[in-house]
């Protein structure tokens, strides 16, 4: 009988972006009592509960099964969850919070461009300095897995909670593994990213816990949420094209060669309506004109609900 619980970031830019993401899907998050309250609701969905948590906690709560859904970065999913493929399901990327987890070394290391260079330096470092090469990072698990995949074993991790990029200058470490959006902080600290040193391209994702208590109420709540999220996504990615055309069959055939379009609306008489991917709108319009249309109009849509929910079905399958 448990409600569907969604964990969302409790402060900062991630929180704002999350609110606007839900807002676009027509879901209004309410936080009675303001920023001090750690529980909230979604307007019109009484069976859904919101938990406001810090970003790194969300990944852990998901793997523990304490919440059903969470909004968190891929970096935190991979760092904090031992085997993500077993304990969580990545529902969909959200288009914000993009950042890369990278290996960065001092620019002065003109001899180090790739991970294999770094491997050479690491294995020679102890001979020369009597200790292992130090890597400052908060991504202990990601670093270890990435270095192991490159066959590098001669290093030590120095855990760093903040301002990791300053560690080499402060002689607390020789190099770092950190998250960066533009690379400007690395630049400012005279660090460069290795050519093959991108460990993970991260952005905020809607993530589902596989170990949470998925009661019928929770599943129904998930379906209601994902219906709206998927409908908004589909509306955002598609446009409706309308034109007066004599031969519908031929026109549709021509369109099919350009993109995956589907007939849409009341296609009786001459009027033809199709749902078409946003990126192919101009090409499709051109094709319709070549097939006899005088004018093509394009409309944006608020929501596109479909019988088959592309976000809910894969989740339901994993849970069954």
């Amino acid at each position, binding site marked *: 009988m448990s409600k569907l619980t969604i964990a969302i970031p409790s402060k900062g830019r991630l929180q704002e972006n999350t609110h606007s993401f839900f807002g676009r899907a027509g879901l209004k998050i309410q936080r009675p009592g303001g920023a001090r309250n750690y529980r909230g609701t979604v307007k019109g969905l009484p069976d859904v509960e919101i938990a406001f948590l810090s970003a790194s906690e969300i990944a852990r709560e998901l793997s523990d099964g304490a919440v059903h859904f969470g909004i968190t970065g891929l970096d935190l999913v991979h760092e904090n969850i031992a085997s993500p493929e077993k304990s969580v399901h990545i529902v969909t990327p959200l288009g914000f919070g993009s950042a890369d987890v990278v290996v960065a070394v001092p*620019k002065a290391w003109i001899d180090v461009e790739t991970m294999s*260079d770094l491997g050479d330096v690491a294995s020679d470092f102890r001979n020369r300095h009597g200790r292992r090469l130090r890597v400052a990072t908060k991504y202990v698990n990601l670093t270890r897995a990435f270095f192991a995949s490159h*066959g590098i074993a001669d290093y030590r991790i120095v855990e760093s909670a903040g301002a990791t990029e300053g560690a*080499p200058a402060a002689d607390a470490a*020789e190099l770092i593994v950190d998250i960066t959006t533009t690379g400007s902080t690395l630049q400012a600290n005279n660090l460069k990213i290795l050519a093959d040193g991108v460990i993970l391209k991260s952005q905020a994702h809607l993530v589902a816990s596989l170990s949470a208590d998925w009661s019928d109420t929770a599943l129904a709540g998930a379906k209601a949420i994902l219906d709206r999220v998927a409908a908004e996504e589909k509306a955002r990615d598609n446009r409706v094209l309308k034109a007066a055309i004599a031969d519908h069959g031929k026109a549709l055939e021509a369109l099919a060669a350009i993109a995956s379009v589907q007939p849409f609306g009341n296609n009786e008489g001459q009027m033809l309506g199709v749902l078409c991917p946003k990126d192919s709108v101009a090409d499709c319009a051109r094709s319709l004109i070549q097939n006899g249309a005088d004018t093509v109009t394009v409309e944006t849509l608020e929501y596109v609900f479909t019988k088959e929910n592309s976000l809910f079905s894969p989740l339901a399958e994993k849970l069954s």
Partner: protein
Amino acid sequence: MPQSSLTTGDIETVLTLFKDAGHDKVSPPILQPADVFLDLVGEDIRRRLFLTNGTDGEDLCLRPDFTIPVCRLHLENGAAAREAAYCYHGPVFRQRADGLGEIPQIGAESLGRNDFVAADADMLALSVEAVRRFGLSDLDIRIGDETLFVQVLKGLDLPVVWQRRLRDLFGDTEKLSEALSRMAGGEANKEDERRDVRLGFLSALEGSDPAAAHAVVEDLLSIAGISAVGGRTPGEIADRFLEQAQLANGAGSNPKAAEILRRYLAISGPADTAVRELRAFAAETGIDLSEPLASFSARLDALTAKGLATQTLTFAADFGRRLDYYSGFVFEIHGLNSPSDEQLVGGGRYDKLVRLLGAEAEVPAIGFSLWLDRIARITGAGA
């Protein structure tokens, strides 16, 4: 799941066997400084350690093995180079996905013996006898020897970089064969394409007088006003930069040496035939293996004298441990009829360990551990 279905009587029998062979029983502390293990074994062990903190913030761990704690005990209680033999029984702690990470072990270590060959034979024979006392007789005994590999590397006249790369990877067959492909010229080129821009500069440097080139690179770094070089000196960076120049000019790809190494690493089989194969390999390639081969044969003779027929031992040229304190002879014992291929005993020579722990010089040392949980599973399954 019971910790071990072996009886106290079984354990006592084996401890008595060790004591009769001159090994004193020791009980090193369960709590150990985590730094020692991370430094010696590498970061990869961190995910398996049970970590905790002392009140002063020191990172502590539950001992993940016995060898390092026993050696620390040895160092605390007297001169590092003294001859000593120890045995132990108790749990080691390693995080694992299935089951609790508390694993019972029993084993023995021998430090300070300078008669290497005899010590190797004594310890392998002792471990085999210990396993037999637990009621297992169909054993698959595997041996390896890194000194042979090192000698082959030396004999190939490879650039220093490649000698170091390959030696580092010895013991990890997959990574080692990847590296050999790179050395053969396959992948090296792909990677070097990224360096195209710098290649011209590098080749210009390569042709010049090494000392002058070194000075140029060092000067460049200081002109750029680069002071914080992240713990590496400009001289060190210049060294490696020139090393790359050498590699970029073709010294890097060496298909012939890669082929010879592949041939060497493929040698495996019963120890007595392996010796003949190794001799033939040395003769064909012209690599002088006489010294390590003499020790290898002497060790086999000593084992025969102890009643271990050499045809029952399996040698594999690529068998080693990717831990840099293991320096030579290594062995493993598996059950011949056991359902899984887990090792029941792991052992080997670790002459470098005591020095890495703080002694002034290397101390000859060899030891082994029995995985009692696995032995219990096999003997239990047979009952």
